[in-house]
């Protein structure tokens, strides 16, 4: 195993806030666009990312909700 001090490997997304943001960024903006009967527009998605502070606190809430679901 090499020294990996400089390279930060984030394979466990669940464990950090930045990773949740990273996940949202991946899921919300990309993926194959097929002609669904209802789809969302890029502008709708960008709205989600507006307002960093509001967003981060909301995501915190989201994480708590998800965690609770897992416990149930």
């Amino acid at each position, binding site marked *: 195993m*090499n020294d*990996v001090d*400089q*390279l*930060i*490997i*984030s*394979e466990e*997304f669940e464990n950090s806030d*930045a*990773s*949740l*943001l*990273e*996940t*949202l*960024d*991946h*899921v*919300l*903006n*990309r*993926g*194959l*666009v*097929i*002609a*669904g*009967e*209802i*789809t*969302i527009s890029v502008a*709708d*998605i*960008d*709205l*989600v*990312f507006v307002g*960093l502070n*509001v*967003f981060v606190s*909301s*995501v915190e*809430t*989201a*994480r708590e*909700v*998800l965690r609770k*679901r897992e416990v149930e």
Partner: protein
Amino acid sequence: MSELVYYVYCIAESAAAEQLPVDSLPAAIEEDAQLEWISVNTLAALVSRVPASSYSEEQLAEHLTDATWTAIRAMRHETVVEFVAKRITTIPLRFATIYLERDGIEQILAENSHDLELIIEQLRGREEWGVNVYSDRAVLLSSITQVSPVLRELAERAGKASPGQSYLMQKKIDALRVDEARAAVNRIVDQIEETLKAQADDGVRLRILKVETTEHGELKAKFAFLVRRSGFEEFRDAAERLAQEHQAAGIRLELTGPWPVYNFVTGFTG
């Protein structure tokens, strides 16, 4: 009981989908609904039913302004697609692709089978890896002064000049240093892109939605690379060498993944 519509997560080959019975899969995007494979000949789409009342065009647009609602659903979407992508070759679909009828999905699979199969073939054995490049401004600025001959010479002259002159020269040094730092970051980011692209099947630069400042510094660039599983060790080693090479300049690399190949299925519109 309210009307139900179909939420589509991803597409895979029917034969591969058979290895993943729905009761082995994670939870669907909404409670009280099972995931289901809809199969047409060689292709299968993974779907679950969702209430039309929440997923109509207007309702969706409204829900999306609620970050909590969106974040929870996006994470569930990701959990499902990631689970499948870890096991079989998968085309991930964009969040919130909705069909009103089962027929619509069957039609998409039938009409686009050739293109979809081609995409699956190109993705086989490959994963997406993200690379984020961060810059620590303070470290970068001080390293720039040390390596730039122009800045070094100016600093020496400022040291010998009169207080008034020295003040003006210092202002000039500061401005130059900011310019040189910006150019250095651009150069390094380009080099990272070029080097890692050579180790991957494909690579794209992603837009930065928000300027994030983390413990690693400010986010300067985001990339996604399509990497063969068999070539991942080499890709990782190349990233590590780049990280080592630029550490003294305050540059950090973050490797994230493996992701479903969200960034490498975008050309197709059905």
